[in-house]
């Protein structure tokens, strides 16, 4: 150790500088942490600040009229689209996840998995463009719930598939082996053991996917279209409104009421998304507590 006395001296001289550099680095890290947390809090607070003073029941219970009225048509539309995505993307996504975790092998599995992940990375407006050209124009569906929810589903299926696959993969193999030893058939094992214990994870993935669907705009603009009437329960030939559209069209209008509606819609969106995130967290917390005690 003392072989190189000279070097040791040099190091001692540098120590103070190194320590100082480290402190600076740590404080920059803390600043970075602040920068990461500030925008989300700022946005939520700002939107609430601008929306709450004039929020009233009538905003939720009356449909839009020109640049005024309420957001009932958009709220109902968003709920319909989200419900549709839950059904369509939920089914395809969960089934896809089951296949990837239970049956898929080798290269084919890699290909399917890869395709799914890549699909999730396609810019939303590109998916929207294709949805418009194919369903709205070529299939003559017109602006419609069907075109909108299929376009959105294409975007969130990969997410649901991934969480389902991962959740199923995390089912302790001892559960499955035990069930096999008891003579349960594969179908029963999947239903009663694997899916049941993976359920919290699957539900969480589905909920977060819905949160993404609630907040999307670009894929819906040219597929679901827009209408200030209350949406009809029809898959095709009936455009409908949704909350993100209200934010996008009203914010820039030279009317106080329109800008207020824009913030109201943004506020409702944030509340919906927060509620969904909270739900997913509660499910995870419950599931992990359950697992620990089990």
């Amino acid at each position, binding site marked *: 150790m003392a072989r190189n006395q000279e070097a040791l001296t040099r190091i001692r001289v540098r120590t103070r500088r190194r320590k100082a550099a480290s402190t600076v680095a740590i404080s920059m890290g803390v600043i970075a942490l602040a920068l990461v947390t500030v925008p989300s809090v700022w946005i939520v607070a700002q939107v609430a600040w601008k929306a709450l003073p004039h929020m009233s029941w009538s905003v939720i219970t009356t449909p839009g009229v020109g640049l005024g009225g309420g957001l009932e048509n958009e709220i109902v539309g968003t709920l319909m689209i989200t419900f549709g995505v839950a059904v369509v993307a939920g089914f395809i996504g969960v089934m896809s996840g089951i296949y990837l975790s239970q049956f898929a092998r080798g290269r084919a599995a890699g290909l399917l998995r890869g395709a799914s992940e890549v699909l999730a990375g396609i810019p939303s407006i590109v998916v929207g463009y294709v949805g418009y050209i194919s369903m709205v124009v070529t299939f*003559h569906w017109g602006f419609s719930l069907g075109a909108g929810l299929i376009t959105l589903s294409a975007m969130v299926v990969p997410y649901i598939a991934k969480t389902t696959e991962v959740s199923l993969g995390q089912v302790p193999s001892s559960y499955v082996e035990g069930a096999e030893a008891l003579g349960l058939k594969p179908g029963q094992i999947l239903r009663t053991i694997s899916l049941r214990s993976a359920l919290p994870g699957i539900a969480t993935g589905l909920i977060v996917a819905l949160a993404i669907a609630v907040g999307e705009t670009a894929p819906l603009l040219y597929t679901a279209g827009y209408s200030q009437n209350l949406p009809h329960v029809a898959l095709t030939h009936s455009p409908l409104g949704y909350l993100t559209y209200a934010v996008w069209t009203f914010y820039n209008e030279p009317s106080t009421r329109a800008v207020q509606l824009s913030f109201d819609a943004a506020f409702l969106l944030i509340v919906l998304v927060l509620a969904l995130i909270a739900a997913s967290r509660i499910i995870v917390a419950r599931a992990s507590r359950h697992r620990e005690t089990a």
Partner: protein
Amino acid sequence: MKNNYLGKETHGMAPKRPLLAAGLMGVAGLAASACGSSSSATTTSSTTATTAASATTQANAAPNYAATETPPTANVALQETGSTLLYPLFNLWAPDYHTQYSNISITTAGTGSGTGIADAASGTVDIGASDAYLSPTQTGQTPTLINIPLAISAQEIVVHIPGVTQQLHLTGQVISDIYQGKIKYWNDPAITALNSGVNLPHLAIAPLHRSDSSGDTFLFTQYLSKADPNGWGSANGPQFGTTVAFPAVPTALAEQGNGGMVTGCAQTAGCIAYVGVSYASQASKAGLTLAAISNQAGQFLVPTAAGIQAEAKNFIGQVPANEAISLIYGPGATSYPIINFEYAIVNTKQSDPNKAQAIKAFLTWAIDPAHGNATSYVSQVNFQPLPTSVATLSLAQIAKIGG
């Protein structure tokens, strides 16, 4: 034909100003709010009442609205999409029409003129709304597509120069140079020469244009093309269209919709923008100043009832059977140079006879001065009713809708 309008008056829908009552011939009363708002009536409108009153009236027989105004007895749901400028008017019409004929329901959507035309062409919707008439590119693709004028609209030029409240005078040439980046500051000699007595600051001009396809861009660039034929309108210039390649100006801004133009201009000191008259009150509320622009005779005007009537009169006799005509930059000292027809785009080829009949009935109802074209409707969005001779042509086009 006057009877139609007079009849309407007796129904309690009289224009609010004597000036307009005097102007009740080819073009009946302008939107009360456009003429009543802000400074719009200040410049040259005082002399126009008499001019308008002495204008020739069309000799056509009264249009026969009744022939196509009966809707089918079956339940029909019509869909309309398109121009955001026409959207508010359709929103007034649709519920009232449904009240009158409960078996006909009309869904409206303000999606932009482009979607309106494309959807009408593809049959996705029944009625498209557009601020611009159809172009050969569209009629070439879909020969059965027609454009039917429903009302008359106009466009105003507004500026936002802090500290300057006087009404600026701008020629088409100057505006063209501004949008080409040749005039960069408000105190440019070309501008000060037109506005002696106004203390213009050395402030960069920010020319605003529309980022979406727009009938307003169509009108505005057509005005520039005609007022500056050797620059803007030349073969190498930007020319006109619903979307044009605006010259690259570092301070330029593009905005979505008329609303975006108003709010964008209000946020940007030094801005100049073109806005549909249906946004006149919002523009003045946002603190934007109306500019008087030069017409073909070299007079500086702001949009007024009389100015629009005088301009429309220039063209009414020339409207072709397909009604695709520009109403921009006509002669006459009192003619406001930027006005246009608002169109319904319809495919004459309809597979469902009930639907065809419903479209015919609704459009007829819309242009009937006793119903949809009554001042009580059009004045709410600052439009002008159709002149009778144009309504006659529109009826002839409506009659073509069928199988």
